[in-house]
């Protein structure tokens, strides 16, 4: 079978799974739904591997295939095919998405076991995988937008999964609205591409672009900036990032899959996919890189003070995506995509561990109330440390190689791009601190009551479920987990998923060691061969020097975190007192929500209210009620005549005729 045939199967399985689970929610037993969901994604992953093998059998230059099943839309000279594009980049994304999804499905199989909406959850989750794969396999911009919008919708549906929670539905709406703002940018970009190049097909667009556009011409810059609006919204970059932390209202597997490992990296994929356009618009690429840099620093500082376990990891996600955006924008495509892969491993793992702990805490997410889980939950804490080490770029873990490669490339490009190296290392330092702040706050120390209960009796804390955000009681009848919680220690599927990811987080970096092997970058090279930036390579010795700096910084960060949170636990509180202004500023997330509220939401509401008061009340209402008044008044006037007195009718008739006769007599003479 050819690579494209496998790719079609990759799309088929998750869609099939989603439909079967959705239609069979009444007849399928709970475990069967989970098994179907997990198995279809597993098959998807196997098909992805088959596509990879079939691609590897060809010469590197020939590794791109377009295939279409039928016409998606054919109107007015515009023929859009339901087509996919299979090349190393899309296959790489398929493998990451399907691989991580399969593990997260496996995890959810255990984690969501007692949830009332189990079928709904797996149906959504499978549909998400389908949408995401459609996004990465799409062969033209139209299908890309379809996939893009689908993942936005599923993200909304899954954030608001526990739909009796006010906070969850609000967060879902916020995510959807912000994403739609980005979607508009993407759609406008596609329009502009079609106007300038006359086609939506990737291969034609990227082939024509260098002939039609001059470097930094305004049209191509506009296209790239519009694409970036979509990228920033989907990948939670400044200033469109505010939805991501709120998205943590969803179930933890959702946070792990959609809001850490796959969907939010769609923006990175999009930049890599359209690199041919970004090469022609270096200004736009630089803007993207600087926004990525700003995001990675801002998010890292916020993560330093967050007390909500999942939100802190969410800010870390933003920060890591910032690295990827920097990478693919400045030309370190292979490194950026590699970081995407390793990040998917360790961030999904961290979320899984966090989910396990949150379950043990009966849905409490505040780290101030957690401690001593190291003894209570050995497996979870070991995997969490593995994920934390990779995130903090501990030497020889996966994050270590991938992050430093981006920074080394920035250094090799030189000039202005050295800023990225320097500030990127600073961000890495912050990353190590906030990661191990979480770990040292949650794992060691005297066990909190919930952890103690787990140690003493092996029982997971069960309280009447309350919303941690508002404290109100949860409605368990429709779609809330209920009183039962599941932790990794007591669920084999969860343990398997976490173990595999922990392995990937620790050793995933070994497939791309500078100077030793370069599997990912070499595999992706044919895709980026047309970019002049791809020719820049940091020398092996520089890479190793970079890795050396990286390990020093990582160890220093972990050391600082150890000193602050284990050796001298009173120091953070003192610092918080001493720099309370800074702490408040960071704790309120740089006041981004408030700023957006002030700059966009309130003016919009004010305009709306003004329009309601002035335009709606006076103009529209005036028109409508004015017409009504005229008709009604006229009716009232005429009614007077209809007295019912036959003789008065006769009189009117006579007078009328007499008048008419008089008129004609007078006018004729």
């Amino acid at each position: 079978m050819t690579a494209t045939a496998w790719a079609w199967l990759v799309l088929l399985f998750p869609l099939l799974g989603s439909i079967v689970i959705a239609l069979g929610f009444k007849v399928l037993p709970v475990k069967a739904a989970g098994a179907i969901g997990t198995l279809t994604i597993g098959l998807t992953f196997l098909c992805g591997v088959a596509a990879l093998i079939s691609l590897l059998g060809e010469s590197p230059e020939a590794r791109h295939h377009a295939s279409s099943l039928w016409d998606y839309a054919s109107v007015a000279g515009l023929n859009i095919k339901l087509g996919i594009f299979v090349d190393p980049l899309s296959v790489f994304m398929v493998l990451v998405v399907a691989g991580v999804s399969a593990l997260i499905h496996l995890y959810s199989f255990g984690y969501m076991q007692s949830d009332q909406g189990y079928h709904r959850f797996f149906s959504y989750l499978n549909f998400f995988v389908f949408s995401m794969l459609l996004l990465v396999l799409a062969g033209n911009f139209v299908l890309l937008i379809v996939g893009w919008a689908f993942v936005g919708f599923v993200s909304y549906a899954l954030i608001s999964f526990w739909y009796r929670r006010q906070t969850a539905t609000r967060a879902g709406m916020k995510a959807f609205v912000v994403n739609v703002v980005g979607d508009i940018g993407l759609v406008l970009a596609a329009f502009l591409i079609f106007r300038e190049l006359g086609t939506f097909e990737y291969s034609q667009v990227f082939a024509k672009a260098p002939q039609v556009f001059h470097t930094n011409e305004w049209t191509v810059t506009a296209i790239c900036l519009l694409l970036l609006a979509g990228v920033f919204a989907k990948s939670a970059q400044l200033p469109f990032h505010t939805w991501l932390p709120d998205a943590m209202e969803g179930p933890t597997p959702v946070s792990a899959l959609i809001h850490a490992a796959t969907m939010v990296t769609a923006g990175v994929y999009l930049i890599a996919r359209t690199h041919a356009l970004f090469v022609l618009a270096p200004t736009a690429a630089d803007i993207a890189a600087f926004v990525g840099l700003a995001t990675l620093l801002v998010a890292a500082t916020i993560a330093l003070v967050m007390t909500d376990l999942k939100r802190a990891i969410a800010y870390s996600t933003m920060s890591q995506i910032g690295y990827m955006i920097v990478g693919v924008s400045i030309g370190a495509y292979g490194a950026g995509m590699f970081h995407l892969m390793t990040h998917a491993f360790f961030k999904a793992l961290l979320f899984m561990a966090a989910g396990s702990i949150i379950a043990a805490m009966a849905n409490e997410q505040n780290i101030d109330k957690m401690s001593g889980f190291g003894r209570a939950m050995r497996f979870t804490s070991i995997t969490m440390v593995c994920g934390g080490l990779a995130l903090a770029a501990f030497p020889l873990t996966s994050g270590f190689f991938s992050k430093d490669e981006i920074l080394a490339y920035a250094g090799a490009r030189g000039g202005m791009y050295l800023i990225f190296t320097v500030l990127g290392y600073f961000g890495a330092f912050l990353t190590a601190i906030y990661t191990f702040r979480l770990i040292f706050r949650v794992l060691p120390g005297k066990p909190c009551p919930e952890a103690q209960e787990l140690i003493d009796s092996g029982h997971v804390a069960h309280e009447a479920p309350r919303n941690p955000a508002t404290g109100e009681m949860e409605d368990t009848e429709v779609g809330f987990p209920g009183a039962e919680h599941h932790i990794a220690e007591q669920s084999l599927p969860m343990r398997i998923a976490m173990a595999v990811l922990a392995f990937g987080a620790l050793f995933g970096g070994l497939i791309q060691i500078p100077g030793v092997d370069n599997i990912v970058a070499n595999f992706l090279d044919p895709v980026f061969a047309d970019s002049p930036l791809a020719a820049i390579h940091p020398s092996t010795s520089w890479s190793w020097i970079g890795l050396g700096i990286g390990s020093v910084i990582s160890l220093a960060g972990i050391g600082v975190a150890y000193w602050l949170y284990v050796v001298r636990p009173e120091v953070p509180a003192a610092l918080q007192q001493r720099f309370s202004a800074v702490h408040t500023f960071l704790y309120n997330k740089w006041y981004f929500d408030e700023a957006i509220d002030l700059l966009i939401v309130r003016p919009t509401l004010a305009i709306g209210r003004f329009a309601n008061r002035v335009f709606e009340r006076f103009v529209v209402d005036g028109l409508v009620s004015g017409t009504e008044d005229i008709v009604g008044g006229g009716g009232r006037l005429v009614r007077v005549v209809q007295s019912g007195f036959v003789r008065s009718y006769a009189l009117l008739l006579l007078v009328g005729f007499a008048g008419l006769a008089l008129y004609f007599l007078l006018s004729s003479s």
Partner: protein
Amino acid sequence: MNIEWYIVLSSLLFAIGATGILIRRSPVVILLCLELMLNAGNLALVAFSRMVGNQQGQIFAIVVMVVAACEVVVGLGLIVAIFRRKLPLDVDALRELRG
């Protein structure tokens, strides 16, 4: 004879009929007055017909008579119906059509 006399007579008859309709309340009398008005019209038609010198006006008068006969049939029928239902035979009392 001069045409004016016919027209004056016709106008007088018409005015008497109209006044009758306006001032009387019994439907029977009103019907009678209506007949008077119609026949005033007929008189004018016949007079003009003679003045002009052709028969069209006379034929038209016959048509008016037919219409008048029909109208009387319907009108009397209504009056009998009103009487049978023991409603007051007074046009001012029958004012269900008030808007």
